[in-house]
Protein backbone atom coordinates (compact mmCIF):
# COMPACT_ATOMS: atom_id res chain seq x y z
CA UNK A 1 0.00 0.00 0.00
CA UNK A 2 2.64 2.50 0.97
CA UNK A 3 5.74 0.61 -0.03
CA UNK A 4 5.76 1.28 -3.75
CA UNK A 5 6.42 4.81 -4.87
CA UNK A 6 3.18 6.22 -6.23
CA UNK A 7 2.79 6.28 -9.95
CA UNK A 8 1.17 9.43 -11.16
CA UNK A 9 1.35 8.65 -14.81
CA UNK A 10 -1.59 6.56 -15.93
CA UNK A 11 -0.13 5.35 -19.16
CA UNK A 12 3.43 4.19 -18.66
CA UNK A 13 6.01 3.74 -21.35
CA UNK A 14 4.38 5.81 -24.02
CA UNK A 15 7.68 7.36 -25.14
CA UNK A 16 7.93 4.99 -28.07
CA UNK A 17 4.47 5.68 -29.42
CA UNK A 18 4.90 9.38 -30.03
CA UNK A 19 1.95 11.26 -31.32
CA UNK A 20 2.05 14.43 -33.29
CA UNK A 21 1.93 17.34 -30.82
CA UNK A 22 -1.43 19.00 -31.30
CA UNK A 23 -2.83 22.40 -30.46
CA UNK A 24 -4.81 20.79 -27.65
CA UNK A 25 -1.69 19.30 -26.13
CA UNK A 26 0.02 22.67 -26.34
CA UNK A 27 -2.87 24.35 -24.56
CA UNK A 28 -2.81 21.72 -21.84
CA UNK A 29 0.89 22.29 -21.21
CA UNK A 30 0.26 26.01 -21.19
CA UNK A 31 -2.60 25.77 -18.72
CA UNK A 32 -0.78 23.43 -16.36
CA UNK A 33 2.22 25.75 -16.41
CA UNK A 34 0.04 28.78 -15.81
CA UNK A 35 -1.59 27.15 -12.79
CA UNK A 36 1.81 26.20 -11.38
CA UNK A 37 2.97 29.80 -11.78
CA UNK A 38 -0.23 31.04 -10.17
CA UNK A 39 0.55 28.82 -7.20
CA UNK A 40 4.02 30.30 -7.01
CA UNK A 41 3.05 33.93 -7.60
CA UNK A 42 2.08 34.91 -4.03
CA UNK A 43 5.35 33.48 -2.71
CA UNK A 44 7.33 35.46 -5.25
CA UNK A 45 5.29 38.56 -4.51
CA UNK A 46 5.95 38.26 -0.79
CA UNK A 47 9.67 37.73 -1.30
CA UNK A 48 9.83 40.80 -3.53
CA UNK A 49 7.53 42.71 -1.19
CA UNK A 50 9.78 42.09 1.78
CA UNK A 51 12.53 44.01 -0.01
CA UNK A 52 10.32 46.84 -1.29
CA UNK A 53 10.58 50.43 -0.07
CA UNK A 54 7.57 52.29 1.23
CA UNK A 55 7.93 54.94 -1.46
CA UNK A 56 7.79 52.37 -4.25
CA UNK A 57 4.91 50.33 -2.88
CA UNK A 58 2.74 53.39 -2.19
CA UNK A 59 3.25 54.51 -5.76
CA UNK A 60 3.08 51.24 -7.69
CA UNK A 61 1.82 48.65 -5.25
CA UNK A 62 3.84 45.50 -4.60
CA UNK A 63 5.31 44.00 -7.75
CA UNK A 64 7.52 41.05 -8.54
CA UNK A 65 10.42 43.36 -9.34
CA UNK A 66 10.43 46.78 -7.74
CA UNK A 67 13.57 47.82 -9.63
CA UNK A 68 16.90 48.53 -8.01
CA UNK A 69 15.71 51.89 -6.70
CA UNK A 70 12.77 50.28 -4.94
CA UNK A 71 14.85 47.72 -3.07
CA UNK A 72 15.70 47.95 0.60
CA UNK A 73 16.81 45.69 3.41
CA UNK A 74 15.02 47.83 5.96
CA UNK A 75 12.30 45.26 6.70
CA UNK A 76 14.89 42.65 7.60
CA UNK A 77 16.90 45.21 9.56
CA UNK A 78 13.84 46.04 11.59
CA UNK A 79 13.30 42.35 12.25
CA UNK A 80 16.93 42.13 13.26
CA UNK A 81 16.50 44.99 15.70
CA UNK A 82 13.54 43.11 17.16
CA UNK A 83 15.40 39.80 17.13
CA UNK A 84 14.39 38.69 20.60
CA UNK A 85 10.71 38.20 19.85
CA UNK A 86 11.45 36.27 16.67
CA UNK A 87 14.02 34.08 18.39
CA UNK A 88 11.45 33.53 21.11
CA UNK A 89 8.80 32.54 18.60
CA UNK A 90 11.22 30.19 16.92
CA UNK A 91 12.07 28.54 20.22
CA UNK A 92 8.40 28.01 21.03
CA UNK A 93 7.53 26.70 17.59
CA UNK A 94 10.58 24.44 17.37
CA UNK A 95 9.76 22.99 20.77
CA UNK A 96 6.09 22.38 20.02
CA UNK A 97 6.89 20.98 16.58
CA UNK A 98 9.65 18.60 17.66
CA UNK A 99 8.31 17.54 21.02
CA UNK A 100 4.67 17.58 19.96
CA UNK A 101 5.32 15.56 16.82
CA UNK A 102 7.36 12.96 18.72
CA UNK A 103 4.74 12.62 21.44
CA UNK A 104 1.88 12.54 18.97
CA UNK A 105 3.57 9.85 16.87
CA UNK A 106 4.24 7.79 19.96
CA UNK A 107 0.73 7.87 21.42
CA UNK A 108 -1.14 7.58 18.12
CA UNK A 109 0.98 4.73 16.81
CA UNK A 110 0.51 2.81 20.07
CA UNK A 111 -3.23 3.29 19.72
CA UNK A 112 -3.02 2.19 16.09
CA UNK A 113 -1.13 -0.92 17.16
CA UNK A 114 -3.75 -1.83 19.75
CA UNK A 115 -6.51 -1.42 17.17
CA UNK A 116 -4.63 -3.62 14.71
CA UNK A 117 -4.65 -6.66 17.06
CA UNK A 118 -7.71 -8.54 15.90
CA UNK A 119 -7.81 -10.96 18.84
CA UNK A 120 -8.10 -8.13 21.37
CA UNK A 121 -11.28 -8.12 23.43
CA UNK A 122 -13.17 -4.89 23.00
CA UNK A 123 -11.26 -3.87 19.91
CA UNK A 124 -14.41 -2.85 18.07
CA UNK A 125 -15.54 -0.75 20.98
CA UNK A 126 -12.22 1.09 21.18
CA UNK A 127 -12.29 1.54 17.43
CA UNK A 128 -15.72 3.12 17.67
CA UNK A 129 -14.52 5.29 20.55
CA UNK A 130 -11.88 6.77 18.24
CA UNK A 131 -14.10 6.93 15.16
CA UNK A 132 -16.95 8.72 16.89
CA UNK A 133 -14.74 11.72 17.63
CA UNK A 134 -14.43 12.21 13.88
CA UNK A 135 -18.19 12.19 13.41
CA UNK A 136 -19.45 14.37 16.19
CA UNK A 137 -17.99 17.21 18.16
CA UNK A 138 -19.23 19.18 21.11
CA UNK A 139 -18.13 22.35 19.41
CA UNK A 140 -15.49 24.96 19.97
CA UNK A 141 -17.13 26.65 22.95
CA UNK A 142 -17.40 23.71 25.39
CA UNK A 143 -13.85 22.75 24.37
CA UNK A 144 -12.69 26.24 25.23
CA UNK A 145 -14.61 26.36 28.52
CA UNK A 146 -13.15 23.02 29.59
CA UNK A 147 -9.61 24.15 28.75
CA UNK A 148 -10.01 27.46 30.57
CA UNK A 149 -12.18 26.46 33.53
CA UNK A 150 -11.05 22.89 34.26
CA UNK A 151 -7.58 22.61 32.74
CA UNK A 152 -6.36 25.97 33.96
CA UNK A 153 -2.91 24.58 34.79
CA UNK A 154 -2.38 24.19 31.06
CA UNK A 155 -3.44 27.68 30.00
CA UNK A 156 -0.60 30.11 29.37
CA UNK A 157 1.99 27.34 29.33
CA UNK A 158 3.70 25.72 26.38
CA UNK A 159 1.68 22.55 27.06
CA UNK A 160 -1.46 24.30 25.84
CA UNK A 161 0.20 24.42 22.43
CA UNK A 162 0.87 20.68 22.41
CA UNK A 163 -1.51 18.55 24.46
CA UNK A 164 -4.83 19.45 22.79
CA UNK A 165 -3.35 18.54 19.40
CA UNK A 166 -1.83 15.18 20.33
CA UNK A 167 -4.63 12.74 19.57
CA UNK A 168 -5.34 12.45 15.86
CA UNK A 169 -7.99 9.90 14.82
CA UNK A 170 -6.95 10.17 11.19
CA UNK A 171 -3.33 9.32 12.02
CA UNK A 172 -4.43 6.55 14.36
CA UNK A 173 -6.31 4.88 11.49
CA UNK A 174 -3.34 5.34 9.17
CA UNK A 175 -1.17 3.49 11.69
CA UNK A 176 -3.83 0.86 12.33
CA UNK A 177 -4.20 0.13 8.62
CA UNK A 178 -0.48 -0.10 8.11
CA UNK A 179 0.04 -2.39 11.09
CA UNK A 180 -2.86 -4.58 9.94
CA UNK A 181 -1.05 -5.11 6.63
CA UNK A 182 2.04 -6.45 8.44
CA UNK A 183 1.98 -10.29 8.31
CA UNK A 184 0.59 -11.80 11.50
CA UNK A 185 3.37 -14.40 11.55
CA UNK A 186 5.73 -11.67 12.71
CA UNK A 187 3.57 -11.05 15.74
CA UNK A 188 2.93 -14.72 16.50
CA UNK A 189 6.57 -15.78 16.38
CA UNK A 190 7.64 -12.90 18.61
CA UNK A 191 4.86 -13.87 20.98
CA UNK A 192 6.11 -17.43 21.12
CA UNK A 193 9.58 -16.10 21.87
CA UNK A 194 8.02 -14.51 24.91
CA UNK A 195 7.95 -10.87 23.82
CA UNK A 196 5.23 -8.66 25.29
CA UNK A 197 3.01 -6.47 23.15
CA UNK A 198 4.96 -3.30 23.81
CA UNK A 199 8.22 -5.03 22.88
CA UNK A 200 6.68 -6.30 19.67
CA UNK A 201 5.33 -2.83 18.88
CA UNK A 202 8.55 -0.94 19.58
CA UNK A 203 11.00 -3.60 18.42
CA UNK A 204 9.27 -4.92 15.31
CA UNK A 205 6.23 -3.03 14.09
CA UNK A 206 7.66 0.48 14.39
CA UNK A 207 10.81 -0.66 12.61
CA UNK A 208 8.95 -1.92 9.54
CA UNK A 209 6.72 1.14 9.34
CA UNK A 210 9.04 3.73 7.82
CA UNK A 211 6.64 4.80 5.03
CA UNK A 212 3.66 5.48 7.25
CA UNK A 213 5.89 7.05 9.90
CA UNK A 214 7.37 9.44 7.34
CA UNK A 215 3.96 10.50 6.10
CA UNK A 216 2.41 10.97 9.52
CA UNK A 217 5.51 12.79 10.77
CA UNK A 218 5.29 15.19 7.85
CA UNK A 219 1.62 16.00 8.38
CA UNK A 220 1.88 16.21 12.15
CA UNK A 221 4.97 18.41 12.10
CA UNK A 222 3.32 20.65 9.54
CA UNK A 223 0.25 20.88 11.76
CA UNK A 224 2.33 22.00 14.73
CA UNK A 225 4.48 24.38 12.70
CA UNK A 226 1.46 26.08 11.11
CA UNK A 227 -0.70 26.20 14.21
CA UNK A 228 -1.91 29.52 15.56
CA UNK A 229 -5.31 28.41 16.85
CA UNK A 230 -4.07 27.10 20.19
CA UNK A 231 -1.97 30.22 20.67
CA UNK A 232 -5.00 32.37 19.92
CA UNK A 233 -7.28 30.50 22.30
CA UNK A 234 -5.09 29.33 25.16
CA UNK A 235 -2.21 31.79 25.46
CA UNK A 236 -3.73 34.78 27.19
CA UNK A 237 -1.19 36.79 29.15
CA UNK A 238 2.14 35.14 28.46
CA UNK A 239 2.58 36.39 24.90
CA UNK A 240 6.24 35.34 25.01
CA UNK A 241 4.78 31.88 24.43
CA UNK A 242 3.23 32.86 21.12
CA UNK A 243 4.29 30.48 18.35
CA UNK A 244 5.58 31.94 15.08
CA UNK A 245 2.22 31.94 13.32
CA UNK A 246 0.68 33.90 16.17
CA UNK A 247 3.49 36.46 15.96
CA UNK A 248 2.75 36.74 12.30
CA UNK A 249 -0.91 37.43 13.02
CA UNK A 250 -0.09 40.06 15.59
CA UNK A 251 2.96 41.59 13.97
CA UNK A 252 1.37 44.96 13.44
CA UNK A 253 0.49 45.44 17.07
CA UNK A 254 3.83 43.93 18.02
CA UNK A 255 5.73 46.42 15.92
CA UNK A 256 3.75 49.33 17.25
CA UNK A 257 4.51 48.08 20.70
CA UNK A 258 8.21 47.84 19.96
CA UNK A 259 8.19 51.23 18.35
CA UNK A 260 6.97 52.85 21.50
CA UNK A 261 9.19 50.73 23.73
CA UNK A 262 12.49 51.17 22.00
CA UNK A 263 12.10 54.66 20.70
CA UNK A 264 15.69 54.99 19.58
CA UNK A 265 15.86 57.42 16.65
CA UNK A 266 17.48 54.72 14.56
CA UNK A 267 14.52 52.39 14.98
CA UNK A 268 12.04 55.19 14.41
CA UNK A 269 13.67 56.15 11.14
CA UNK A 270 13.73 52.53 10.06
CA UNK A 271 10.05 52.08 10.79
CA UNK A 272 9.14 55.15 8.82
CA UNK A 273 10.97 53.98 5.71
CA UNK A 274 9.22 50.64 5.23
CA UNK A 275 5.60 49.69 4.84
CA UNK A 276 4.40 47.57 7.73
CA UNK A 277 3.29 45.05 5.10
CA UNK A 278 6.93 44.62 4.13
CA UNK A 279 7.85 43.74 7.69
CA UNK A 280 5.07 41.17 7.76
CA UNK A 281 6.31 39.79 4.47
CA UNK A 282 9.86 39.59 5.76
CA UNK A 283 8.54 37.70 8.76
CA UNK A 284 6.63 35.37 6.41
CA UNK A 285 9.94 34.59 4.71
CA UNK A 286 11.65 34.03 8.05
CA UNK A 287 8.89 31.78 9.41
CA UNK A 288 7.86 29.93 6.26
CA UNK A 289 11.40 29.59 4.95
CA UNK A 290 12.06 26.25 6.65
CA UNK A 291 8.94 24.76 5.03
CA UNK A 292 9.96 26.01 1.62
CA UNK A 293 13.49 24.66 2.07
CA UNK A 294 12.27 21.25 3.17
CA UNK A 295 9.49 21.12 0.62
CA UNK A 296 11.42 19.52 -2.26
CA UNK A 297 12.42 16.64 0.03
CA UNK A 298 9.14 16.33 1.86
CA UNK A 299 6.71 16.53 -1.01
CA UNK A 300 7.06 12.92 -2.12
CA UNK A 301 5.92 11.76 1.31
CA UNK A 302 3.09 14.19 0.90
CA UNK A 303 1.98 12.46 -2.29
CA UNK A 304 2.29 9.10 -0.53
CA UNK A 305 0.26 10.47 2.33
CA UNK A 306 -2.60 11.36 0.03
CA UNK A 307 -2.44 7.90 -1.51
CA UNK A 308 -2.74 6.16 1.84
CA UNK A 309 -5.23 8.79 2.90
CA UNK A 310 -8.15 6.62 1.84
CA UNK A 311 -8.73 5.64 5.42
CA UNK A 312 -11.56 3.66 6.82
CA UNK A 313 -12.65 3.65 10.46
Amino acid at each position, binding site marked *: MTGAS*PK*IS*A*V*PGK*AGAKRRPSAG*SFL*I*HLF*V*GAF*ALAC*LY*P*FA*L*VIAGSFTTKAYS*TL*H*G*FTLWPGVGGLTLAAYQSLFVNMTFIVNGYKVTLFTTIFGTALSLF*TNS*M*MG*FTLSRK*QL*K*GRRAINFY*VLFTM*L*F*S*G*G*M*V*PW*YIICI*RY*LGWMVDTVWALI*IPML*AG*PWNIFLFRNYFTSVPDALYESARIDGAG*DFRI*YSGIYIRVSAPVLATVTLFTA*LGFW*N*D*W*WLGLMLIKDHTELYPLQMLL*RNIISNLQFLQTMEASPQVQALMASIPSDSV*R*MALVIVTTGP*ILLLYPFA*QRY*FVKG*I*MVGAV*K*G
Partner: protein
Amino acid sequence: MTNMLMGTAGAGHSARAVRTRRTLLQVLSGWQLYAMALPTMALLFVFSYWPMFGAILAFKKYKVKDGILGSAWMNPLLRNFQALNSADARQAIRNTLSLNFMFIAAGTVFALALALMFNEVRHKAYKKVTQSLSFLPYFISTVVIGIFASGMLNYENGSINGMLAALGREKIGFFMEARYWPLILLIVTIWKGAGYSSVVYLATIAGVDSELYEAAKIDGASRWGEMWHISLPMLRPTVIVLTLLAIGRVMNADFGLFYNVTQDMPTLYSTTDVIDTHVYRLLRKRGDIGISTAVGLFQSSISFILVLISNYAARKIDDSAALF
Protein backbone atom coordinates in the same frame (compact mmCIF):
# COMPACT_ATOMS: atom_id res chain seq x y z
CA MET B 1 -10.00 -27.76 36.36
CA THR B 2 -11.04 -26.21 33.11
CA ASN B 3 -11.09 -29.63 31.50
CA MET B 4 -13.19 -31.04 34.24
CA LEU B 5 -15.72 -28.26 33.97
CA MET B 6 -15.93 -28.53 30.26
CA GLY B 7 -16.48 -32.23 30.59
CA THR B 8 -19.64 -31.67 32.63
CA ALA B 9 -22.15 -31.67 29.83
CA GLY B 10 -25.31 -29.69 30.17
CA ALA B 11 -24.11 -27.58 33.07
CA GLY B 12 -24.98 -24.20 31.57
CA HIS B 13 -23.83 -22.31 34.60
CA SER B 14 -20.32 -23.84 34.56
CA ALA B 15 -19.96 -23.31 30.83
CA ARG B 16 -20.64 -19.65 31.40
CA ALA B 17 -18.08 -19.60 34.16
CA VAL B 18 -15.52 -21.00 31.77
CA ARG B 19 -16.39 -18.43 29.16
CA THR B 20 -16.05 -15.66 31.70
CA ARG B 21 -12.73 -17.09 32.80
CA ARG B 22 -11.47 -17.29 29.26
CA THR B 23 -12.56 -13.72 28.57
CA LEU B 24 -10.83 -12.61 31.72
CA LEU B 25 -7.64 -14.36 30.65
CA GLN B 26 -7.80 -12.76 27.22
CA VAL B 27 -8.29 -9.35 28.74
CA LEU B 28 -5.43 -9.92 31.16
CA SER B 29 -3.02 -11.18 28.54
CA GLY B 30 -3.80 -8.09 26.47
CA TRP B 31 -3.12 -5.69 29.34
CA GLN B 32 -0.17 -4.12 27.55
CA LEU B 33 -2.37 -3.39 24.56
CA TYR B 34 -4.94 -1.67 26.75
CA ALA B 35 -2.19 0.26 28.47
CA MET B 36 -0.87 1.39 25.09
CA ALA B 37 -4.31 2.63 24.10
CA LEU B 38 -4.81 4.46 27.35
CA PRO B 39 -2.96 7.77 26.69
CA THR B 40 -4.85 8.41 23.48
CA MET B 41 -8.14 7.32 25.01
CA ALA B 42 -7.59 9.74 27.85
CA LEU B 43 -6.74 12.57 25.44
CA LEU B 44 -9.82 11.86 23.35
CA PHE B 45 -11.88 11.76 26.49
CA VAL B 46 -10.66 15.14 27.69
CA PHE B 47 -10.66 17.02 24.38
CA SER B 48 -13.51 15.31 22.50
CA TYR B 49 -15.91 13.50 24.82
CA TRP B 50 -15.84 15.95 27.67
CA PRO B 51 -16.72 18.84 25.33
CA MET B 52 -19.56 16.71 23.91
CA PHE B 53 -20.91 16.47 27.41
CA GLY B 54 -20.10 20.15 27.93
CA ALA B 55 -22.43 20.97 25.07
CA ILE B 56 -25.25 20.84 27.64
CA LEU B 57 -24.18 24.44 28.23
CA ALA B 58 -26.41 25.18 25.26
CA PHE B 59 -29.33 24.62 27.64
CA LYS B 60 -27.79 26.47 30.58
CA LYS B 61 -26.95 29.88 31.89
CA TYR B 62 -23.22 29.47 32.41
CA LYS B 63 -21.54 30.97 35.44
CA VAL B 64 -17.78 30.45 35.83
CA LYS B 65 -18.01 29.82 39.55
CA ASP B 66 -20.73 27.18 39.12
CA GLY B 67 -19.02 25.27 36.30
CA ILE B 68 -20.73 23.20 33.65
CA LEU B 69 -22.74 20.93 35.94
CA GLY B 70 -23.55 23.53 38.57
CA SER B 71 -24.82 26.28 36.31
CA ALA B 72 -28.57 26.73 36.26
CA TRP B 73 -30.76 25.47 33.44
CA MET B 74 -32.08 27.99 31.02
CA ASN B 75 -35.71 28.91 31.35
CA PRO B 76 -37.23 28.14 28.92
CA LEU B 77 -34.77 25.38 28.24
CA LEU B 78 -34.26 26.17 24.55
CA ARG B 79 -33.93 29.93 24.96
CA ASN B 80 -30.31 30.01 23.81
CA PHE B 81 -31.38 28.44 20.53
CA GLN B 82 -33.54 31.44 19.73
CA ALA B 83 -30.29 33.11 18.69
CA LEU B 84 -30.34 30.87 15.62
CA ASN B 85 -33.18 32.99 14.35
CA SER B 86 -31.20 36.23 14.56
CA ALA B 87 -30.28 37.96 11.32
CA ASP B 88 -26.56 37.38 11.98
CA ALA B 89 -26.95 33.65 12.57
CA ARG B 90 -29.19 33.19 9.56
CA GLN B 91 -26.68 35.06 7.43
CA ALA B 92 -23.83 32.90 8.74
CA ILE B 93 -25.74 29.69 8.00
CA ARG B 94 -26.67 30.92 4.54
CA ASN B 95 -23.08 31.93 3.79
CA THR B 96 -21.68 28.64 5.06
CA LEU B 97 -23.98 26.58 2.87
CA SER B 98 -23.77 28.68 -0.29
CA LEU B 99 -19.99 29.13 -0.14
CA ASN B 100 -19.38 25.47 0.62
CA PHE B 101 -21.61 24.28 -2.20
CA MET B 102 -19.84 26.66 -4.54
CA PHE B 103 -16.43 25.43 -3.33
CA ILE B 104 -17.47 21.81 -3.80
CA ALA B 105 -18.88 22.29 -7.30
CA ALA B 106 -16.21 24.57 -8.73
CA GLY B 107 -13.40 22.97 -6.76
CA THR B 108 -14.26 19.48 -8.00
CA VAL B 109 -14.54 20.53 -11.63
CA PHE B 110 -11.26 22.41 -11.45
CA ALA B 111 -9.33 19.65 -9.67
CA LEU B 112 -10.71 17.07 -12.05
CA ALA B 113 -9.73 19.10 -15.10
CA LEU B 114 -6.30 19.68 -13.59
CA ALA B 115 -5.78 15.95 -12.97
CA LEU B 116 -6.82 15.05 -16.52
CA MET B 117 -4.44 17.68 -17.86
CA PHE B 118 -1.55 16.55 -15.68
CA ASN B 119 -2.20 13.09 -17.01
CA GLU B 120 -1.71 14.34 -20.55
CA VAL B 121 1.63 16.03 -19.85
CA ARG B 122 4.26 13.73 -21.25
CA HIS B 123 7.38 15.72 -20.48
CA LYS B 124 8.52 14.16 -17.19
CA ALA B 125 10.46 17.05 -15.67
CA TYR B 126 7.84 19.61 -16.67
CA LYS B 127 5.16 17.48 -15.09
CA LYS B 128 7.11 16.92 -11.91
CA VAL B 129 7.85 20.60 -11.43
CA THR B 130 4.36 21.86 -12.25
CA GLN B 131 2.76 19.24 -10.06
CA SER B 132 5.02 19.93 -7.11
CA LEU B 133 4.24 23.62 -7.37
CA SER B 134 0.52 22.92 -7.59
CA PHE B 135 0.31 21.50 -4.10
CA LEU B 136 2.83 23.81 -2.49
CA PRO B 137 -0.02 26.08 -1.23
CA TYR B 138 -1.39 23.17 0.78
CA PHE B 139 1.65 23.44 3.07
CA ILE B 140 1.06 27.04 4.02
CA SER B 141 -0.71 28.26 7.13
CA THR B 142 -3.85 30.32 6.71
CA VAL B 143 -2.12 33.19 8.51
CA VAL B 144 0.43 33.34 5.71
CA ILE B 145 -2.32 33.02 3.09
CA GLY B 146 -3.94 36.02 4.75
CA ILE B 147 -0.75 38.01 4.24
CA PHE B 148 -0.59 36.85 0.61
CA ALA B 149 -4.13 38.09 0.11
CA SER B 150 -3.36 41.40 1.75
CA GLY B 151 -0.27 41.84 -0.43
CA MET B 152 -2.46 41.53 -3.49
CA LEU B 153 -5.71 43.12 -2.40
CA ASN B 154 -5.11 45.90 0.07
CA TYR B 155 -5.96 49.40 -1.01
CA GLU B 156 -2.71 51.27 -0.42
CA ASN B 157 -0.15 48.93 -1.94
CA GLY B 158 -1.76 45.67 -3.02
CA SER B 159 -0.35 44.35 -6.28
CA ILE B 160 -3.75 44.22 -7.99
CA ASN B 161 -4.51 47.80 -7.08
CA GLY B 162 -1.02 48.69 -8.29
CA MET B 163 -1.85 47.17 -11.67
CA LEU B 164 -5.23 48.89 -11.79
CA ALA B 165 -3.56 52.20 -11.06
CA ALA B 166 -0.94 51.56 -13.76
CA LEU B 167 -3.76 50.94 -16.23
CA GLY B 168 -5.33 54.24 -15.24
CA ARG B 169 -8.27 52.51 -13.57
CA GLU B 170 -9.68 53.29 -10.19
CA LYS B 171 -8.39 51.27 -7.24
CA ILE B 172 -10.76 48.86 -5.50
CA GLY B 173 -11.14 48.76 -1.74
CA PHE B 174 -11.44 44.99 -1.59
CA PHE B 175 -11.57 44.89 2.18
CA MET B 176 -14.49 47.30 2.17
CA GLU B 177 -16.62 45.63 -0.47
CA ALA B 178 -18.28 42.38 0.44
CA ARG B 179 -19.49 41.51 -3.05
CA TYR B 180 -16.03 40.52 -4.31
CA TRP B 181 -15.43 38.02 -1.57
CA PRO B 182 -17.26 34.88 -2.64
CA LEU B 183 -15.09 34.93 -5.76
CA ILE B 184 -11.90 35.76 -3.85
CA LEU B 185 -12.53 32.97 -1.36
CA LEU B 186 -13.29 30.56 -4.18
CA ILE B 187 -10.00 31.43 -5.87
CA VAL B 188 -8.11 31.00 -2.59
CA THR B 189 -9.80 27.65 -1.97
CA ILE B 190 -8.94 26.38 -5.44
CA TRP B 191 -5.42 27.77 -5.19
CA LYS B 192 -4.93 25.99 -1.87
CA GLY B 193 -6.67 22.70 -2.59
CA ALA B 194 -6.81 21.91 -6.31
CA GLY B 195 -3.29 20.52 -6.52
CA TYR B 196 -3.98 18.32 -3.51
CA SER B 197 -7.27 16.97 -4.88
CA SER B 198 -5.77 16.39 -8.30
CA VAL B 199 -3.26 13.98 -6.76
CA VAL B 200 -6.13 11.85 -5.49
CA TYR B 201 -7.71 11.81 -8.95
CA LEU B 202 -4.38 11.07 -10.62
CA ALA B 203 -3.93 8.12 -8.30
CA THR B 204 -7.30 6.80 -9.48
CA ILE B 205 -6.36 7.24 -13.12
CA ALA B 206 -3.07 5.49 -12.40
CA GLY B 207 -5.07 2.53 -11.14
CA VAL B 208 -6.91 2.15 -14.45
CA ASP B 209 -5.85 -0.92 -16.39
CA SER B 210 -3.49 0.33 -19.10
CA GLU B 211 -4.89 -2.32 -21.47
CA LEU B 212 -8.01 -0.20 -21.70
CA TYR B 213 -5.96 2.64 -23.13
CA GLU B 214 -4.08 0.27 -25.44
CA ALA B 215 -7.35 -1.12 -26.77
CA ALA B 216 -8.71 2.37 -27.29
CA LYS B 217 -5.60 3.34 -29.20
CA ILE B 218 -5.93 0.32 -31.48
CA ASP B 219 -9.51 1.38 -32.12
CA GLY B 220 -8.12 4.72 -33.20
CA ALA B 221 -9.25 6.78 -30.22
CA SER B 222 -7.75 10.22 -29.89
CA ARG B 223 -6.28 11.56 -26.66
CA TRP B 224 -9.49 13.44 -26.17
CA GLY B 225 -11.44 10.26 -26.76
CA GLU B 226 -9.35 8.37 -24.21
CA MET B 227 -9.94 11.12 -21.70
CA TRP B 228 -13.66 11.31 -22.33
CA HIS B 229 -14.47 7.63 -22.68
CA ILE B 230 -12.00 5.99 -20.30
CA SER B 231 -10.40 8.32 -17.72
CA LEU B 232 -13.53 10.28 -16.91
CA PRO B 233 -15.88 7.30 -16.45
CA MET B 234 -13.21 5.58 -14.35
CA LEU B 235 -13.01 8.65 -12.13
CA ARG B 236 -16.74 8.82 -11.60
CA PRO B 237 -16.95 6.72 -8.40
CA THR B 238 -14.05 8.65 -6.82
CA VAL B 239 -15.62 11.96 -7.72
CA ILE B 240 -19.01 10.96 -6.38
CA VAL B 241 -17.60 9.59 -3.15
CA LEU B 242 -15.36 12.60 -2.48
CA THR B 243 -18.24 14.94 -3.27
CA LEU B 244 -20.57 13.07 -0.95
CA LEU B 245 -18.04 13.20 1.85
CA ALA B 246 -17.58 16.92 1.22
CA ILE B 247 -21.34 17.42 1.38
CA GLY B 248 -21.26 15.70 4.75
CA ARG B 249 -19.08 18.56 5.95
CA VAL B 250 -21.03 21.34 4.30
CA MET B 251 -22.01 22.93 7.62
CA ASN B 252 -18.37 23.33 8.62
CA ALA B 253 -16.13 26.03 7.27
CA ASP B 254 -12.36 26.35 7.43
CA PHE B 255 -12.18 28.84 10.31
CA GLY B 256 -8.58 29.82 9.57
CA LEU B 257 -9.35 30.65 5.98
CA PHE B 258 -12.32 32.85 6.76
CA TYR B 259 -10.79 34.46 9.81
CA ASN B 260 -7.33 35.19 8.47
CA VAL B 261 -7.91 35.89 4.80
CA THR B 262 -10.77 38.31 5.40
CA GLN B 263 -8.80 39.77 8.34
CA ASP B 264 -12.08 39.48 10.25
CA MET B 265 -13.28 42.71 8.64
CA PRO B 266 -16.84 43.53 9.73
CA THR B 267 -17.41 45.20 6.36
CA LEU B 268 -17.20 41.79 4.73
CA TYR B 269 -19.45 39.83 7.09
CA SER B 270 -22.47 39.97 4.77
CA THR B 271 -20.80 37.52 2.37
CA THR B 272 -17.97 35.99 4.42
CA ASP B 273 -19.29 35.40 7.93
CA VAL B 274 -19.72 31.65 8.40
CA ILE B 275 -21.00 29.64 11.35
CA ASP B 276 -17.51 29.02 12.71
CA THR B 277 -16.50 32.70 12.68
CA HIS B 278 -19.93 33.66 13.99
CA VAL B 279 -19.59 31.28 16.94
CA TYR B 280 -16.07 32.49 17.61
CA ARG B 281 -17.28 36.09 17.73
CA LEU B 282 -20.20 35.22 19.98
CA LEU B 283 -17.71 33.62 22.33
CA ARG B 284 -14.78 36.04 22.29
CA LYS B 285 -16.41 39.38 21.57
CA ARG B 286 -19.80 38.98 23.22
CA GLY B 287 -18.73 36.36 25.73
CA ASP B 288 -22.10 34.66 25.51
CA ILE B 289 -21.30 31.06 26.41
CA GLY B 290 -24.86 29.70 26.26
CA ILE B 291 -25.74 31.16 22.87
CA SER B 292 -22.39 30.37 21.22
CA THR B 293 -22.61 26.78 22.49
CA ALA B 294 -26.17 26.51 21.18
CA VAL B 295 -25.22 27.70 17.70
CA GLY B 296 -22.22 25.36 17.71
CA LEU B 297 -24.35 22.44 18.86
CA PHE B 298 -26.88 23.14 16.12
CA GLN B 299 -24.03 23.09 13.61
CA SER B 300 -22.44 19.87 14.84
CA SER B 301 -25.80 18.08 15.14
CA ILE B 302 -26.77 18.85 11.55
CA SER B 303 -23.23 17.96 10.55
CA PHE B 304 -23.46 14.62 12.35
CA ILE B 305 -26.64 13.69 10.51
CA LEU B 306 -25.20 14.80 7.18
CA VAL B 307 -22.00 12.81 7.72
CA LEU B 308 -24.01 9.68 8.50
CA ILE B 309 -26.19 10.10 5.42
CA SER B 310 -23.34 10.95 3.06
CA ASN B 311 -21.22 8.12 4.37
CA TYR B 312 -24.12 5.70 3.92
CA ALA B 313 -24.53 6.91 0.34
CA ALA B 314 -20.80 6.74 -0.32
CA ARG B 315 -20.70 3.15 0.93
CA LYS B 316 -23.50 2.23 -1.46
CA ILE B 317 -21.34 3.44 -4.34
CA ASP B 318 -17.94 2.24 -3.27
CA ASP B 319 -17.64 0.08 -0.21
CA SER B 320 -13.94 0.78 0.25
CA ALA B 321 -14.20 4.55 -0.09
CA ALA B 322 -16.57 5.30 2.76
CA LEU B 323 -15.19 6.76 5.93
CA PHE B 324 -16.60 3.97 8.08
